[in-house]
């Protein structure tokens, strides 16, 4: 590397980063909430859902569940880090469809996050999942579905997604 190597490299990195940034928007989980809910949203879980099984007229089922989405990220290509809940596995044992969630253990032994804190992801490249405790960056086309009647369902869907390992 020459005398001007380091600044040159930094400049190149900056350029690449800004080009990538223009196309792909990097998100945090709070960006998935609508702007007015960000201040008040808590990571605590919605009320128990056992009445969901028995019918939707029961009181618990009628509790408002915040499934409102952030319209700004609808239809954009975004990049979001999270943990993987594998849903579909192909013949080679690789994950092809998953839920992306903000914390490990969601959907296994603790209640799932709020609907607008879950992304249903369909991968373009199947992922060889090491452990569910590993975090990944997921990049893909985000679509928001505002279905208020669907209790606890994921409010976001990402297609054509790619993954890369997230290092803490």
């Amino acid at each position: 590397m020459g005398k001007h190597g380091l600044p040159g490299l930094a400049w190149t990195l900056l350029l690449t980063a800004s080009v990538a940034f223009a196309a792909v928007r990097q998100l945090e989980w709070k960006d998935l909430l609508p702007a007015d809910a960000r201040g008040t949203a808590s990571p605590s879980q919605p009320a128990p859902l056992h009445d969901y099984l028995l019918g939707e007229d029961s009181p618990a089922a009628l509790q408002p569940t915040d499934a409102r989405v952030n319209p700004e990220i609808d239809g954009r290509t975004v990049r979001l880090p999270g943990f993987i809940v594998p849903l579909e596995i192909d013949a080679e044992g690789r994950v092809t469809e998953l839920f992306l969630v903000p914390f490990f253990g969601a959907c296994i032994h603790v209640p799932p996050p709020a609907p607008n804190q879950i992304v249903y992801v369909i991968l373009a490249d199947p992922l060889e999942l090491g452990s569910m405790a590993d975090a990944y960056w997921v990049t893909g086309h985000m679509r928001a579905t505002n279905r208020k009647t669907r209790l606890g369902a994921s409010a976001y869907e990402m297609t054509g997604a790619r993954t890369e390992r997230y290092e803490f």
Partner: protein
Amino acid sequence: MSALPGLALPSLWNRRGTAALTVFAIGVSVALLLSVQMLRSSARESFSGTISGTDLVVGPRTGPVNLLLYSVFHIGEPAANVSWASYRLVSGHRDVAWTVPLVLGDSHRGFRVVGTDANFFTHYRYAGGKPLRLAEGHPPQGSGEATLGHEVARAHGYRPGAPIVLAHGLGAGSFLQHEDSPVRVAGVLAPTGTPVDRAVYVDLATLEAIHGPAHSGPEPAAITAFLVGMRNRDTTLVMQRALSEYRGEALQAVIPGVALAELWRVVGIVDRVLLAVSACVALAGLLGLLAAILTSLNERRREMAILRSVGARPRHIFGLLLLEAGLLAAAGALAGIGLAYGLLLLARPWVAARYGLELGLRPLGLTELAILGAVIGAALVLSAFPAWRAYRVALADGLNVRL
């Protein structure tokens, strides 16, 4: 240089006893390494490919891996049942597209009998979304008919129309046979490479009929577990949570992908230890090769000296030893491939019968080729040491008579 292969082969032939032993040692270690590797990948594929397209597996509270193992893989025994009322509650739910009931507890000559309904044949998917296909006949229609997995039919030569007797219990045999109510084979499924091949499928009504008039009617009082497909995949989590918090019965709903991943986290450790152990065995085989070459150096002092005296350069000696080691390792690798496939071929029926695991006999993949390359490469690197020693030895060394 071009004369080297012409020298190396007869030279090895001259020491064929030691050479054969070395090849054998390398062959055994390569075979071990290869079969562990092939076992790993086919176990993983066989496990992962067994269930697909199912959103939830529901059963009594036991633990996700346990529930998946006994309901889908037919490994282990069910701990408790799920009431028919709970099953009806889920199957009639508006967000649920389909449900498949599963009733275990009977067997036929060591193969498990699964009571289910027509939904199993239309909705069960494996290996990334493949539906079940019938090789002949049709799914069981009503009481008294059975559709067999491919392996069951093959093992006993069953064709549609053949009568079979179901036995109580899950063992290889039973002293309580349902002889008074034989079942006719209605169809045979095409091979799937999953535990489906090793099961007998009957309608729920069949099991009710053969278990006597304790409760009349085609519907059972309880089932072992059931599979759920949601209308919309993203409601899976709500249904899962609603089921595990259901007050009517202690239920558990498991996302198959999650349970599989958990299973692999446990199995993966054993799996890596196995690979490490077999790598050590391969290393031991290579050290055997090194020892064989080193000891032969002393015996071959005269041979080397004669080669040198007729015009061979030190680098020719170096090349000759390297070539010999390479040939031995390559022969060992070939022997290892043969042994590995032979072993797999022999172990296949036993592993399938014992563990319900289908070992695929596939051509060598990239990983396997990389392993073989590594073994031969390591042999060359190791033999560079004796080759270098031979290279250093003076021309006069082997010609002098030492007392």
